């Protein structure tokens, strides 16, 4: 029972991590921008959803995702673009943004944790083979699986995806082939930020939203990307599951040292494959 | 003992074979030209020999010693020097400062955490004598940004000479030079002592063919022809490789 519950919680947390990390990984893979505001955007999504819950859960999640996507696009157009070609400046710029977002959230939503009710439909439990599962967590796993499939289809099966892949492989070549790389960047930034916002909104009923959530989630997203490999969809997926498992079981078994245990997979993976499990060679 | 020996060298990037089963030997003091159309894998081969890339298979022997498992810096310590096709200089330093960096690289002093480099007169003297070999001693204290492209090309060679290598890999030492500068550099290459073994990639056929004693022709990552200058020039496959382009 303990193990099955732990496993379910791990998967649910892994699902949240996936929504957070996949956007980060996409943005990094395509644009070589490590968006350190990603954790703050996740938190912002959570807060927006708590404020919009009056319109229903689905509307709240959608609003969070759209608002964060729009915000991401704005950041790309106004800041990232201005610093084009300067990797360090871009990273530090997003770091500065992360501070501003987190502090403004504190101003707007105060310092107290805000609990978010799960939608009425998913508040109960589901019994499978004699084991009782909370329905919302199962739904989270399903949503992450759908997101994985959707992103995979988008990247592998659509024109937009083909363009993204081309630009990841060779940006200059893509430009020469007439792909609007600049618009593509904005699109991917919107997509990544929207997914993070949606992740925050969906995580709210499980984790609630509180100041410091951003600083807690960002390193986990970084770990997922370091483990899985930058720009890799399967890497983000496997990395999320791995970190979800290790973090959840770590907290259940050794609450004091859950963070230290996170260190271990990173050491092992970096020792064997510095480019990550699914990563290609790094620059 | 051969100066450089490459046995069944292979390199693939994600399933794409860029170097396939290449073998050749270079005798001490030899001038060897590496020929081949663009994309033939010449620079990749240099990167494999220098250690910047790890081979997928095969062995590399330097002065009879297997260096396949060694890092770039260890191979440098074994007497391998190289120049880069794209200028790779220390842009914030002076001309002399660049050579000093090269000299320190092969000296145990490089780990010394005290004693200002600029006050090391012995080091400065050695650097000046290296610069004299490429006729740059007059520009010793000029910042890199204020030197011409041709002077940078010569400095690129001086950096490699400063390491006092036994085997020198020259990657297009004449690339982008004017006719006059080409004359200067090729004369400089002619003057290098015969104790030094040289493998060169170069597209300027006049200079390259005059310089080389033996030629290895590479195409699509394979070694097509390997022989004396006249043999390779006369070989129909040479013409084919270049005509196909």
């Amino acid at each position, binding site marked *: 029972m303990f193990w099955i519950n732990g496993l379910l919680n791990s998967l649910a947390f892994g699902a949240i991590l996936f929504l957070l990390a996949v956007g980060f990984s996409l943005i990094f893979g395509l644009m070589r921008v490590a968006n350190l505001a990603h954790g703050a955007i996740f938190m912002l999504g959570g807060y927006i959803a708590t404020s919009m819950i009056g319109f229903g859960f689905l509307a709240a999640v959608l609003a969070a995702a759209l608002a964060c996507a729009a915000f991401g696009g704005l950041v790309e157009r106004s800041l990232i673009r201005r610093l084009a070609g300067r990797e360090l400046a871009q990273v530090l710029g997003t*770091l500065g943004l992360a*501070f501003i977002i987190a502090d403004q959230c504190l101003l707007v939503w105060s310092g107290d944790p805000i609990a978010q009710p799960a939608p009425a439909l998913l508040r109960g439990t589901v019994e499978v083979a004699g084991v009782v599962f909370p329905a919302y967590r199962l739904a989270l796993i399903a949503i992450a699986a759908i997101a994985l499939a959707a992103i995979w289809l988008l990247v592998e099966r659509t024109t937009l995806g083909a363009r993204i892949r081309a630009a990841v492989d060779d940006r200059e070549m893509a430009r020469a082939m007439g792909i609007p790389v600049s618009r593509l960047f904005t699109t991917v930034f919107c997509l990544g930020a929207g997914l993070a916002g949606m992740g925050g909104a969906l995580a709210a009923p499980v984790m609630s939203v509180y100041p410091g959530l951003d600083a807690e989630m960002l390193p986990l997203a970084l770990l997922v990307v*370091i483990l899985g490999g930058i720009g890799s969809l399967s890497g983000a997926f496997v990395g999320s599951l791995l970190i979800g498992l290790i973090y959840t079981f770590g907290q259940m078994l050794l609450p004091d040292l859950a*963070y230290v245990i996170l260190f271990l997979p990173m050491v092992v993976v970096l020792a064997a494959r510095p480019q990550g499990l699914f990563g290609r060679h790094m620059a | 003992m051969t100066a450089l020996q490459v046995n069944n060298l292979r390199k693939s990037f994600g399933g794409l074979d860029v170097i396939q089963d290449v073998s050749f030997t270079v005798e001490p003091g030899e001038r060897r030209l590496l020929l081949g159309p663009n994309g033939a894998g010449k620079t990749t081969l240099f990167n494999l020999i220098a250690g910047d890339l790890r081979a997928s298979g095969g062995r590399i022997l330097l002065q009879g010693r297997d260096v396949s498992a060694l890092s*770039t810096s260890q191979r440098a310590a074994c007497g391998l020097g190289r120049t880069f096709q794209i200028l*790779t200089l220390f*842009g914030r330093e002076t001309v002399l400062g660049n050579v000093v960096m090269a000299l*320190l690289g092969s000296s145990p002093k490089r780990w*010394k955490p005290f004693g200002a*480099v600029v006050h090391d007169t012995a080091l400065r003297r050695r650097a000046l004598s290296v610069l004299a070999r490429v006729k740059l001693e007059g520009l010793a204290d000029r910042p890199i940004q204020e030197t011409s492209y041709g002077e940078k090309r010569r400095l690129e060679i001086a950096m490699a000479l400063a390491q006092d290598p036994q085997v020198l890999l020259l990657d297009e030492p004449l690339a982008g030079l004017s006719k006059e500068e080409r004359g200067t550099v090729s004369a400089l290459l002619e003057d290098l002592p015969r104790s030094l073994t040289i493998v060169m990639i170069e597209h300027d056929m006049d200079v390259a063919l005059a310089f080389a004693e033996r030629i290895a022709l590479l195409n699509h990552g394979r070694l097509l022809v390997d022989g004396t200058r006249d043999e390779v020039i006369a070989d129909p496959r040479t013409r084919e490789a270049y005509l196909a382009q």
Partner: protein
Amino acid sequence: MKPLLVLVVAAAAMPLLLPGEFYLAIATQVLVYGLFAVSVNLIAGYCGMVSLGHAAFLGISGYAFALLSVGAGWPIWAATTAALGLTSLTGAMFGLVALRTSGLSFLMITLALGQIVWGIAFRYVDLTNGENGISLPRPDGVLLHGTGLYYLCLAVTAGCMLFVTVLTRSPLGAAMQGVRDQPRRMSTLGYDVWAIRYVSYVLSALLAAASGILYMLTFRFISPHALSLTVSSEAVLMVIAGGLGTTFGPLLGAALVVLLKNVASAYTDRWPTLLGLIFLFIIVVVPEGLLPGARRLLGALKARVVAPDNIGANLTRASRIEGARQ
């Protein structure tokens, strides 16, 4: 070396010039954070590896010092030695992990490592007292007065800056800067690029550890906040504001950030927002550091007054400076 001497003499006269204890306390904080910034500058400015997890070293050293001197009752010198040793050891371990990569991946891994240590300070309550932190008792001896503490901090910070200055001019220091600018050429020349980065990283951790001890002696209190991403980022900001890879840049940057923080705290508790805005301002407007940046902006202003066409040339120069920095 001479400017450093002048600065030390000027700083030594500070307690006589400053109008009161409050200002002396701020000057002391500048020295503490200045040393921390010096440690970040060693790895980021001279070796080209930007770490966003350096607060971990300050924190580990501070906690170790507090726990050993108060908790275990060790004498100050023993607690100091042990804290420095333990932190260097942690640096040696983290270096093995983080230096498997470079560039942005290095930055991300150091950030993650820093947050892991922060998590330990926060969650491992039995050891660290969690959010409530650890206090040192009232000081005795020379540290009883602010002046004594100030001179101690001055001596340590100036000593460390002297060490860094000597190092950066030495062959090893030249190698570090070579690795920053042309890593590929360096390995071709026979330098072990990884080892040079590793040595710089561990030395930088040691300097951060020294700043951690000063931090403990100055504030006499440490909590997980001292290890947070905010503190690591502030140090990076100090270094960039003062000028990456310069001798006095970190100290100048520390003075700027500490002063702003203290002035701002009188009017607003929105420091993180202000910090973020300063970050954006520095990065967008004066990426080469405040002093060179101000000089460039003044030059551009003058050029605009004289001949509008020169602005382009000035901007080109600025972007070249920035390009060389990358």
